[in-house]
């Protein structure tokens, strides 16, 4: 474990240097969040049927998406991308470590540190000024933390898989665009998953994306509890394992056909 913890630690320290960028990001996200809350409030005011999620819950949900947005793997790891492009990736291959876990650890740091930086600064103003609610109860808070951890692992497995595709695509630009669009939409970060049409619910529930955003948020709201909560966590775990297996298989194929650029 030690080598991987060391990588996590070093990566986290590098990422912590970007505090100012995180602050600027938070300001943008508060503004954007305020617009989204206003739009949804207007919708609710004019809606007639009883919505599957109350306005208060929706507002909290929206603020959670704002706070945890960077948990979504919307970009391919810039460092791995640069390494693949200029051939420094060769150094990654001369480390006595399992390359998959080595990169997974990198992604874990890249997902968790910026998320923590942003979430911790955004939540307080969102609660005090913009009607973001507290977790539905102590149990909900506990479920939420588990769900958040599950989301982090799932998201890291996603980004590791994306980083591995760089061995083929080199730039990774296309994958990133695709993930940003599809991932944001299907994870519930544009519109809460519950507000999607009824016919789409089963498919959305089966796909992995909701595990990154929707699952922890509904646990927070107390919308999922008991067996439903356990099921949602299991969904996260199964998808994480599947993505890890896919990533490992892809990586070992990639390495056997690798051409290290330059020199």
């Amino acid at each position: 474990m030690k080598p991987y913890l060391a990588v996590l630690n070093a990566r986290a320290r590098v990422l912590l240097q970007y505090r100012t960028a995180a602050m600027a990001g938070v300001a943008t996200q508060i503004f954007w969040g305020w617009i989204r809350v206003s739009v949804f409030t207007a919708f609710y005011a004019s809606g007639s049927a009883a919505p599957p999620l109350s306005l208060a819950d929706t507002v909290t949900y929206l603020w959670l998406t704002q706070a945890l947005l960077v948990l979504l793997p919307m970009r391919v790891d810039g460092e791995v991308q640069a390494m693949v492009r200029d051939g420094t990736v060769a150094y990654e291959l001369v480390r006595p470590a399992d390359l998959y876990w080595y990169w997974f650890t990198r992604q874990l740091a890249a997902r968790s540190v910026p998320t923590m930086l942003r979430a911790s600064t955004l939540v307080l103003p969102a609660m005090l000024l913009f009607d973001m609610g507290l977790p539905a109860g102590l149990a909900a808070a506990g479920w939420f933390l588990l769900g958040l951890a599950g989301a982090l692992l799932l998201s890291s497995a996603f980004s590791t898989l994306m980083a591995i595709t760089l061995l083929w695509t080199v730039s990774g630009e296309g994958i990133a665009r695709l993930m940003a669009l599809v991932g944001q939409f299907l994870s519930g970060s544009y519109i809460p998953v519950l507000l999607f049409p009824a016919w789409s619910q089963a498919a959305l529930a089966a796909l992995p994306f909701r595990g990154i955003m929707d699952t922890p948020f509904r646990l927070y709201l107390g919308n999922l509890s008991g067996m439903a909560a356990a099921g949602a966590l299991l969904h996260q775990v199964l998808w994480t394992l599947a993505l890890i297996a896919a990533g490992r298989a892809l990586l070992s194929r990639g390495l056997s056909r690798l051409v290290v650029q330059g020199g």
Partner: protein
Amino acid sequence: MPLIQVSRLSKQYAVAERRPGFWGALAGLVRRRTRLVQALDEISFSIEPGELVGYIGPNGAGKSTTVKILAGILVPTSGEVTVAGRVPWRERIAHVATIGVVFGQRTQLWWDLPVIESFELLRDIYRVSPAEYRRTLDELIAIMDLKDLLDTPVRQLSLGQRMRCDVAAALLHRPAVLFLDEPTIGLDAVAKLATRELVKRLNREQGMTVILTTHDMDDIESLCTRVIMIDEGRILLDGDLDQLRRAATTERRLVIILADEATWIEVPKATVIHRQGARLTLRFDPATVSAASLIADITGRYAIRDLYVEHPPIEEIVARLYQGRTP
């Protein structure tokens, strides 16, 4: 037993070829045309512990491919390789724990962090015990004069300083073999000398086996006891510097400084190839005329202030070997 054993090693790359023009690009989407490039063609050599081997060749000769295969990064098309008894690409993790690699144009240090933090990270990655690490680090600090660099962020180091730190980083886990891929590229004269001195000391004092690829013939001349020259995936020559010279030419140079600049010189069996003021360079073949009789002849007939015999520069020899390669 040799530390490194390479036999009949081949590597082919399939390179996608793009046809020109819009329709060519479109056709490429449907069917890609690939061309096979033979980067290595059945090369064999073996290296004993403690050797310092220069691995040279023109651009695209297959140098880096060989190093990358030996380092376990690339999988060859065919052939056998063992390094310290292991097949690099089959037992990658166990293998890479025993080697150190420095790629001259790249750094393995973390750009934003002070050097020492990169070292500590490598210590953890290579699972070096704290006591062992302390001992190695102290040694490296002494040999490479790193004391003042350790707390500097990597991005603030000069290229020469960074190279020192990179070499140190590759040695923290006390590897049995050190691969240096163009370690002096881009360095200024002082840093080049320092890097060479360092490699020499590691080899002489620590008995480190070093394999060095380079384009800098001074590196070879000042460091290597053995040279492997490769071109188009085949070994052209494997031997010491003398053998390298003999393979290209047996000629020698005689440099004379005349007492009087205006003197016109003509010597049978030797040709003047360069003249700058009072300084002349003559070329002769020791097989037809011995250096002693040539010197006796010249000093008998002309007033000479100074003279000496030398080999043609290694640059020229290598260039000649590269040019004389089979098409």
